[in-house]
């Protein structure tokens, strides 16, 4: 089953245009949605999670119309919002069981099995009897993960899931997602490039409501090979570099700046070629050297 998004736009009552004519095709497997804060990721995720409606455009999940057939979509949906709370006076096990019923697992034995399995998977087994109100941030986040994974959704939407997790939890969670992603569409929104590069077979970069790039991470990185150059400079050289060259990123390393620039040819000035990574893809796309923005810029020039 494939998720296809066709020309969706969304403008909020206050005039903010969160999505502009966005189109995406999301195959089964892990799909990363990269973008800075305020890019429209969450809006897109909420639309996919049936919590909002686009002003125009269509979304299909397999044969289902996500906008019109919300009820059907929800039957196979898992959603982990960026921010959420819990009923404080209920235990994890009880609430998970409650949601298992809501998600259509009506057989008691099946439900118990699913709930207990998830509690173990998310390492909440020991505290399953405790009230959710006493959970720490990380535990709460894991509980959210369990809720999202409940009922093995065919469409799983996770909005910035790794934010509150410690490194081992993060790895564990991403593994779980991978496991699920073997026969489901998993959409992961994040602004952490590693999340995508480590896991996702497909990705898109979104900014200011527009899809800037839709690609497979490996191919995109491949396409950038030979065009990324790197140099360690002093702080006072930076303005010059930014003026003269297409700077992708600057990073501090032991008090000096490591500058990476995009260039078809060697830029000279002591830059040396380096292996492109997904971060370069992201930043050069954002900067307009790559993907949709570049194509648009080219069109504008042609006009």
């Amino acid at each position: 089953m494939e998720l296809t998004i066709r020309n969706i736009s969304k403008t909020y009552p206050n005039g903010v245009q969160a999505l502009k004519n966005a189109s995406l095709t999301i195959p089964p497997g892990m799909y990363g949605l990269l973008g800075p804060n305020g890019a429209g990721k969450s809006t897109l995720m909420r639309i996919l999670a049936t919590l909002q409606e686009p002003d125009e455009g269509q979304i299909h999940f397999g044969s289902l119309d996500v906008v019109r057939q919300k009820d059907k979509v929800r039957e196979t949906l898992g959603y982990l919002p960026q921010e959420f709370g819990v009923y404080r006076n209920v235990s994890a096990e009880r609430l998970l069981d409650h949601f298992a019923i809501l998600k259509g697992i009506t057989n008691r034995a099946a439900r118990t099995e699913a709930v207990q399995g998830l509690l173990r998977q998310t390492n909440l087994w020991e505290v399953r009897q405790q009230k959710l109100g006493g959970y720490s941030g990380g535990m709460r986040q894991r509980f959210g993960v369990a809720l999202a994974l409940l009922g093995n959704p065919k469409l799983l939407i996770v909005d910035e899931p790794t934010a509150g997790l410690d490194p081992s939890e993060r790895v564990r969670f991403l593994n779980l997602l991978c496991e699920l992603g073997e026969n489901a569409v998993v959409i992961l929104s994040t602004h952490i490039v590693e999340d995508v590069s480590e896991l996702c077979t497909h990705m898109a970069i979104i900014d200011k409501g527009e899809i800037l790039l839709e690609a497979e991470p490996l191919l995109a990185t491949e396409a950038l090979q030979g065009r990324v150059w790197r140099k360690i400079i002093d702080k006072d050289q930076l303005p010059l570099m930014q003026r003269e060259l297409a700077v992708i990123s600057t990073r501090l390393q032991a008090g000096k700046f490591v500058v990476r620039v995009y260039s078809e040819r060697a830029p000279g000035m002591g830059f040396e070629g380096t292996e492109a990574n997904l971060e370069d893809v992201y930043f050069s796309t954002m900067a307009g050297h790559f993907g949709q923005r570049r194509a648009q810029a080219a069109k504008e020039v042609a006009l």
Partner: protein
Amino acid sequence: MKLWEIFRFELGSQLRRVSTWLYFLIFLGITFAMVASFTDNVRSGDYLLNAPVVTAAITSIASLLVLLVVAAVAGDAATHDLQDRIEPLLYTSPISKFTYLGGRFLGALAITTLVLLALPLGLMLAVFIPGIDASLFGPFRLVPYLSAFFLIALPNLFVATAILFSVALLSRHALTSFLVGGVLFIMAMVSKEVLADHMGLWSLSKQLDLSGFTLVSHFHKTLTPLQVNTELVPVDGWLVWNRVLWVLVALGMLTLAHYRFRFAHYAGVSWWSRLTRRRQLVTSNDWTAPISLQPVHKTFNVNTQLYQLSALTFQSFRENLLGWGWMCLVFLAGMLLMLVPEWLEGSLGVPTLATTGRIVQTYDLLLFRLTVVAVLVVYMGQLVWRERDARMQDIADAAPVADGVSLLAKLLSALLMLLAVQTVFLLAGLAIQLGLGHPDVELGLYLRVLFGLQLADYLLFAVLALAVHLLVNQKYMGHILFFLTFLFSVFAAELGVGQKLLVYNADSGWSYSDFSGFGLSLAPWFWFKLYWVGWAVLLALVARLFWVRGHETGIAWRLRQAVARPKVSYLLLAAGGGILIFTLGAFVFYNTNVLQENLSKQELAERRATYERLYSQYGNTPQPQLTATKLHVELYPDQSEALVRGVYVLQNKSKVAIDTIHLSTASEVETRQVTFNRNAKAALEDREHRHAIYTLGQPLQPGDSLQLTFEVQYKPKGFTGQGMPQAVADNGTFFMNQEWLPAIGYQPSRELAEAGERKAHNLPPKPTVAPLYDEAARLNTARVERIRFEAVVGTAADQAAITTGELRRTWTEKGRRYFHYVADAPIRNLFAFFSARYAVREASWQGVQIQVLYHPKHAHNVDQLIQSTQASLDYYTRNFGPYPHRQVRLVEYPGAGNGASAYPATIALTENFSMMNPKEDKRGFDLSFAVAAHEMAHQWWAHQLVPAAVEGAALLSESLAWYSALGVVEAAHGPEHLQHLLWIMRESYLTPRSKADVPLLLATDAFQAYRKGPFAMYALKEYLGEGRVNSALQNLLAKHGTGEPPLPTSLDLYRELSMVTPDSLQYLLSDLFEKNTFWDLQAKAVEAEEVGNGQWRVALDVRAQKAEVDTEGVETPVPLDDMVEVGVYGAGKDGSAGELLYLELHRIRAGEQRIYVTVPGKPTQAGIDPRNLLIDLDMMDNVREVILKKPAAPAQALHIRQPEQLLHFMLDVMF
């Protein structure tokens, strides 16, 4: 400075909210509505709508209603930092607790003050509102508004805001302020309705009532007509103490909140969690489970939806019940256990049988309904906001649960809560019944009322609450709007909306009686409710269409969604609801407005005015007088129908020939086939005004008689907004002749009486009651004429039918039982008919047959009633004159009220009267016995001595009847029993009342007729002796007991009393009856000293004053040189006055004086007028404890007492 900034920020953020301004507008509207609802009171009380007391009353009620807003604003101010999760930033700022809390609190106070400013503004602007009669306003004065605002509104607001802010802060939940706000509201209601109105504890209530309404109400009752439009609520001790008490409570709460509040992360350390300390909440970091996701089987079908429905229902119910609901249930249970037994008490606090029927009827009181509805709306708010409050809405909304399932789950959850609430009512009822020793529990009745009638009522409100919450989509605004809708539904009639089809969830009410159960009241109730079910379906549909899900919550978007995608099922539902509304609405309307004539108050008044305009010209036209009535009555209890055929014998007792006869027919029945035994024809038949004029072919010559025959059919068509007429019931039929049978001549009783209304309809002014000196009125015998009476009554085979007269014969014919009654002596033209499945107990007294007919379950008082009847016959025949009949019947019937009424040879007892259980009364008197004696006395005072319908008539009937009954009580039970009864009767003096009044000779109101009059007669008896007073009454009856005009007035009584009063006490007679006199008698100090031989010399320092008060309230001190009793008592049991040592009349002058008496025993109490014979509003200070003088240190004893007294005073005042 920082305080100012926090205050300013809080104020600014609240001012930017639409809700703040909506609150303001709502309060403006409420103020106008309240002013409008006062219009009727003001008109009948003849004062102004902007009288200071009205302003103060509205202010105190409004400051109770504003609790809703205060709860929202203060709760929000105390918790919004937590809600917004900004508290880590604020708590780490360099501000002090005081600054932070102070700023927040003052901000909330400023906002609530702003909202409440709508009140004085609305009060001042009300004069410009169309629909409110501007002529009811006097000239504008600013001071009353300022006084009400600063003395009542502002302190209330401060107290409410402080308390609700503190509890929300302490509990960290805004919900708490709503719950505590509800408790404050109920406390204020209880202190006014229960403590003051019901139990008469005005002082306590004035102290406890946060709203100040009891204070204002008390003040209003003591105002004289002269003061009512000008006097401001006085700043006296009561007001100050009340304000100080509550401000102290508020400051205490604020201090506590300040003390307990911490600028720290809240770790949930409550006493409960400390008790149930658990191991630390961490998970180990070893990830043992292999990564794998089991395949799960999901199904989505109807079964799943049912599963989801029950999961959502029970989960939300459990959460709310454990979270806060249980507190409401406990509070409710406590309230019921405290209040219901109070409410069950009969007149004068006499214990009653706690039957299930009576308990479930108290459950329909507004106070309890209000509590349930308040819990319901808060619960519904919690349900609607459940996911959003927990910030789980995204996860929950993305779950595959149909909107319809969620909606239904919320309704079902509310149903569960209501079931829990009703179970509390049930258990409380059982506990009360068992506690009061009434093991006869009717479980079925509990279930039918609690889980049938009331549950349906509350569920309809639940649907409304759901729809309101979803439409408004703002929690607190939802609460407020729903609550206002509920209050509107309760007070719609007062606000001028008489049509019940326009008031959500209005019904015709239900009633319950042991006789006929719910009788005919259920069917109309059911039709009304079914009509509202139609609306509820539409409301539920609205709730479904405007369901809040996902992130699109704007009303405009939801509206577009609602209309964008019509579904067949919705259209069908809407059609179904619409069909219910239209068919049932039409059906109810047809019943209430077409079959029944549903006249509004204005239309009714207009009709009465027209009647007067058209026919008052015949008021003085000579009419023949009724001299005999012969009836054949057929009652059909199972069909609620009756047919009466009657023959009147009319005699021309005037001095002129009569050629026209005016007949007034009754509104409840159809009168037809009116014929005369001589040539006559109808000149006019005005059905609307129920007046017919017949012209006689041959005028009726003076002294001649004619016969009039008629037929009256009672067959109620349809029902009214108040239900079905129930005169003829399945079991327990009761009606009076005046309600059904035609009357001769123009009926002045149908005229509009109220001065304001008469003016509004351009009718000439007329006194409400004819003046005492109206000689023409004394000649009018209409409706009190003496007649010969005979009736055959037929009823169902298993019932007994009763009316006045000797039962000549009874027989069965065609499966019906017939009774033939013939009055053995002429009776006053007043009689009633009863029919029910009665139990009978018989007795006799010197050949007079005594029968008590009662409901088989209500047998507990029958013996006392018989004893009372026998004692009465004995006392009255000895003292006043013979009893004219050979039988007397005491008959129980299911009727409103809790009293009894007297008909010739028949006494009607209401069911509630029979419920009284004086055997359980610990206060040492038997009210049933006394009331029965009172009704028996009416066989002399009212039925033999028929007073003229002028001022003072009540003195001749009710006061003399009570005076006589007191004599019977004393003769049968002894003087001590009588003193107990009198003491309780005197408690009515404690009810606040203005001194301005007419003298007793002009008595018209109930207080004078039933209390002041009997007390005056009793005082006279104690001064003159029983023999002298009774001989005066005997003379009065002998001279005026014929029933022939001119009828006697209070002046005739006064004349007779005057003749038996010695010259030395003529002043007393005059003070008691001719003037409105108040004594002020007080024992200031009483000392005693043993003088040897067991003799004690008692010195009483007394103070005495006497004043006359006129009808406007002007008080004039008058010289005092009166004979007043001085009494000394020995030690009694447990502190009460014991053995009488001395009781003599002393001559007392005005001012302070010392009296010495010597008594033969150790005195404990002594005082002036110890038996409270003279009218003294401060009865308690007449007697004082005696201080025994010890020669050693007499002065010291005095000193020790004073602080103790002060302490007592403080306790009295505060609690």
